[in-house]
């Protein structure tokens, strides 16, 4: 009997396993702990019974473009036929004999409820290209390879990114001296007119709940709205931060580009670089920054063509003398 001893290793190279260094991003580390092998593995399995010939296994692997096939009957895993086993059978002239005779039998398997971090360590330790996955009842339920892991991590990271991008930072309380303390951050996307104004509206609602004077609320809402629209219309996307502390409201609109060539000109009434279709929506009248400056007690703008713009609007909500 020429049964192979173990799964074929993949080419060995210098590597560091994900999760074994302090430099891996926390999001990634959390992901590989949270994800289970069953979340990542391929469960739509192609298998052969023990009495299938090695040639049948080879044909199946060719058709399905896979590099190994589990030998399984009624959920029980008996072994694995790999490309190495096929080559060995071709050389030895045993390609017409059964998989049961020539399959790899000494297998390292993973369990489906193991965390992905565990699987990654196995890949590193054994240098195998894939591992069969069994459940608690020792039934074969899947197979996992590097490609499955890469695909799962990409999907999860994309979702995580969307979640982080869409999340609004929120902190409420007092600033230690008994004054109101609020902090909100709103990510604003370029040309997202569907949601334009929502951040300003939320700010207004919070201020109404806190029962601030209507005139102050309106000034803050005007500044927030204009800066939100500016991010939406003119920037490549950015963040609108709003903070109330020490008796004043501070709105900061920050973006990473494209920047303003002539800041002084941009702050003039009527100055606008908006195109026709933006004007047709009622924006781009060149009044935005003018409005912000008019309602603000302190106003500041910093910008550089080719880099980002930061606009700050401060409005006092408590009498400074008090």
């Amino acid at each position: 009997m020429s049964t192979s001893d173990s799964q074929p290793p993949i080419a060995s190279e210098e590597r560091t396993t994900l999760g074994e260094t302090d430099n891996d991003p926390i999001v990634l580390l959390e992901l590989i702990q949270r994800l289970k092998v069953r979340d990542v593995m391929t469960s739509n399995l192609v298998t052969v019974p023990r009495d299938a010939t090695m040639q049948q296994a080879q044909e199946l692997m060719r058709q399905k473009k896979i590099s190994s096939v589990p030998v399984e009957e009624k959920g029980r895993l008996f072994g694995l036929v790999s490309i190495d086993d096929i080559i060995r059978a071709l050389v030895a002239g045993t390609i017409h004999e059964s998989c049961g005779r020539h399959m790899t039998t000494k297998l390292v398997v993973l369990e489906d409820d193991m965390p992905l971090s565990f699987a990654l360590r196995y890949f590193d330790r054994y240098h195998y290209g894939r591992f069969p996955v069994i459940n608690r009842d020792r039934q074969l339920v899947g197979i996992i390879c590097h490609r499955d892991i890469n695909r799962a991590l990409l999907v999860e990271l994309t979702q995580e990114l969307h979640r982080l991008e869409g999340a609004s930072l929120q902190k409420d309380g007092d600033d230690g001296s008994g004054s109101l303390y609020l902090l909100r951050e709103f990510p604003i996307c370029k040309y997202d007119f569907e949601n334009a104004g929502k951040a300003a509206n939320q700010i207004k609602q919070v201020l109404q709940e806190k029962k601030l004077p209507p005139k102050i609320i309106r000034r803050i809402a005007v500044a927030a709205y204009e800066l939100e629209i500016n991010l939406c219309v003119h920037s490549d996307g950015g963040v609108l931060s709003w903070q109330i502390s020490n008796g004043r409201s501070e709105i900061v609109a920050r973006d990473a580009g494209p920047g303003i060539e002539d800041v002084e000109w941009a702050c003039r009434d009527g100055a606008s670089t908006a195109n026709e279709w933006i004007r047709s929506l009622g924006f781009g009248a060149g009044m935005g920054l003018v409005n912000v400056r008019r309602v603000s007690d302190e106003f500041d703008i910093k910008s550089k063509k080719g880099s980002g713009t930061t606009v700050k609007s401060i409005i006092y909500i408590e009498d400074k003398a008090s």
Partner: protein
Amino acid sequence: MTLNALIVACGWEPALVPDPEVEVSGAYVSDLLSDVMAHCPDGAVLITVQNHTNSVAVCTLVGAPAIVLVHNREIPEEMQAAASREGVALLRTTDDQFHAALRVGKALGIGVGE
């Protein structure tokens, strides 16, 4: 004057009226949203051609209870949904901005005898 009474007086088509009893203090005519943000008085109806969700957002912020769309402009579904969500009334008229504002002035007695 209540919004409902103003709608009747001006002959506007009431496409959406979440609160017919809300008080109306006047009107503001503009198609520039920054101009509306800067100058529209609280309680005034906005007379405009801007038939989209951003007009609703601006009205919400400045406390304008209704949008009067002139020239019988269509009301897109998203605008209707946003107005319903924010409690902003949507009204339509075949008038242009000047005549729509004139009707409000007459109904509220603004400018009479000036």
